[in-house]
């Protein structure tokens, strides 16, 4: 009926746009599906217990990725430990303390700039700043990642702070609490969800990071404890993937790592949306 009254030109436009939209959406979906299935199919058969639980050995010429898994865990822990106080503190300053609009806009502009800088530049500056002073080691990598993840933690914390009702703060002030006491007892508990979301996003980013770590954390495969691990060079999973694929041609191992990374990425995404939904539900109660 409606379509009968349309001129031919408009009908063609309608059909063309619909086809283009469906094609594009289909292409995006197909690409994602292909990537996931291809990586999992190529990778999962190569994941063995031996691969996961040993270190590479020149004697048996077998590759194990346990050191890389541990390095990834160490670097995530070290980064979060350092970035959380700074990021949360900065967010609290911006939403609770700052009265000067200019200072706020400068800090926010700086955070935006940081989130736009590509990881290769972080890698280079991290090398100049940290690796040249304390050596190429996981700690240098972690310090570089701290700068990289600062904007993420700041943003998520700030967003959750904005949802703490102003009346809570006013109530606490009215009861005679000082600023610091209000921040400690009313504001901080209110930003837990933002901090958790920020942590999940940061873990995802650290897990996928490679360019920033290549020159700061190095690419060794030694098996170490936390303290030794942080003080010596080591490859995380992504860096190991790069080295095995590009420099050693060990595509089986590379795909095994890729599959592990893919599964972890999916889990992290799932966790992030789950947590956000959960907190949104709790807030609406």
């Amino acid at each position: 009926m409606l379509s009968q009254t349309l001129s031919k030109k408009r009908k063609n436009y309608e059909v063309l746009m619909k086809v283009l939209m469906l094609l594009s959406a289909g292409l995006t979906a197909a690409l994602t599906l292909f990537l996931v299935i291809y990586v999992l199919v190529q990778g999962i058969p190569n994941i063995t217990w031996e691969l996961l639980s040993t270190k590479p050995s020149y004697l048996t010429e077998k590759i194990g990725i346990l050191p890389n898994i541990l390095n990834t865990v160490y670097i995530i822990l070290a980064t979060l430990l350092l970035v959380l106080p700074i990021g949360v503190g900065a967010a609290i300053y911006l939403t609770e303390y700052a009265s000067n609009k200019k200072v706020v806009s400068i800090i926010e502009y700086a955070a935006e700039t940081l989130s736009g800088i590509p990881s290769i530049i972080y890698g280079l500056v991290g090398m100049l700043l940290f690796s040249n002073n304390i050596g190429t080691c996981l700690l240098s990598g972690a310090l570089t990642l701290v700068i990289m993840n600062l904007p993420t933690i700041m943003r998520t914390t700030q967003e959750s702070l904005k949802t703490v009702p102003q009346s809570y703060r006013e109530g606490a002030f009215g009861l005679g609490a000082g600023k610091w006491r209000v921040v400690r007892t009313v504001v901080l508990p209110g930003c837990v969800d933002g901090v958790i979301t920020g942590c999940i996003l940061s873990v995802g980013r650290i897990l996928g990071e490679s360019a920033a770590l290549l020159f700061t954390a190095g690419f060794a495969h030694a098996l170490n404890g936390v303290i030794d691990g942080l003080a010596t060079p080591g490859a995380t999973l992504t860096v190991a993937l790069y080295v095995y694929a590009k420099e050693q041609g060990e595509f089986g191992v590379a795909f095994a790592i890729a599959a592990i990374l893919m599964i972890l990425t999916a889990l992290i995404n799932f966790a992030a949306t789950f947590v956000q939904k959960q907190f949104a539900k709790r807030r609406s109660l």
Partner: protein
Amino acid sequence: MITQQSRKIEQIHQDIRAEHKTHVEWKRRNRTQTIEYMIHGIFLLLGLITVGCVLLITVYLIISGIPAIRQIGLLDFLFGKEWASTASEPKYGILPFILTSVYGTAGAILIGVPVGFMTAVYLSKLASIKVKSVMQSAVSLLAGIPSVVYGLVGMLVLVPGIRKIFNVPDGASLLASIIVLAIMILPSIIKMSITALDAVPKEYEDASLALGATPIETYFKVSVPAAKSGIAAAVVLGVGRAIGEAMAVMMVAGNVPNMPNSLFQSVRFLTTAVSSEMSYSSGLQRQALFSIALVLFMFIMLTNAMLNFFLKREKE
């Protein structure tokens, strides 16, 4: 007389005590105030760390990037057509890298933006809630996949594929990089465009529909123009991503410092130029790598400024 005097003394004592009390109170209040000031200062410091980081990065890049440019000469450096850093008579011209980065980014935008934009319009306006949520998690997954994984798949699927289809000796080429980059910028373009399109007031669309426009016409002629700043920001974000990507491109571009004269040439980007020689470079060669990083940083700052401009307009 005596009682009167003692009462007076008592009175004075009381006054002193009261004064002492107010003094203590005042001191205590003063102390809490000092603590408050200190805490305020600590938070300010934490906030300023971000600014410090940006300054530090900028200053370090400029300080380490300038010496090589001065030694080589700005024009020879930027517009020199040959990069031969390990030759006996080394040449440090980075025009091939700049052009490769520009062409690569432009190609990725040319492919990635239309696909991403159309997908975003579909998901924001036409798709059912279920399709939308499934596709959005797919896009998030695409965004979260580490760049080395893209590189790996590109290396083993795309590069051989290009070699076979176009019958060229090596598939590691500008074309392979463009395709990988286009896929990698897709999620940021889709996500940001959806946010912009979802924010278009429903009244605009209702008005257009009431005037007799079809839904599709409404989406493209009313909603899209209303969201144009957000979509422009999405494109600029994609540009930034594509210029800055290093690892995936390193695995599929071939890394030979050629001028990008054809799509099938093995090329080197600004990002990969920095990383591919860093591990063994020294002296002027190493300094030149820092200068390349400085040039890359300038490009990034430019896109950042553009992004901020569009985002601010979007907010208004």
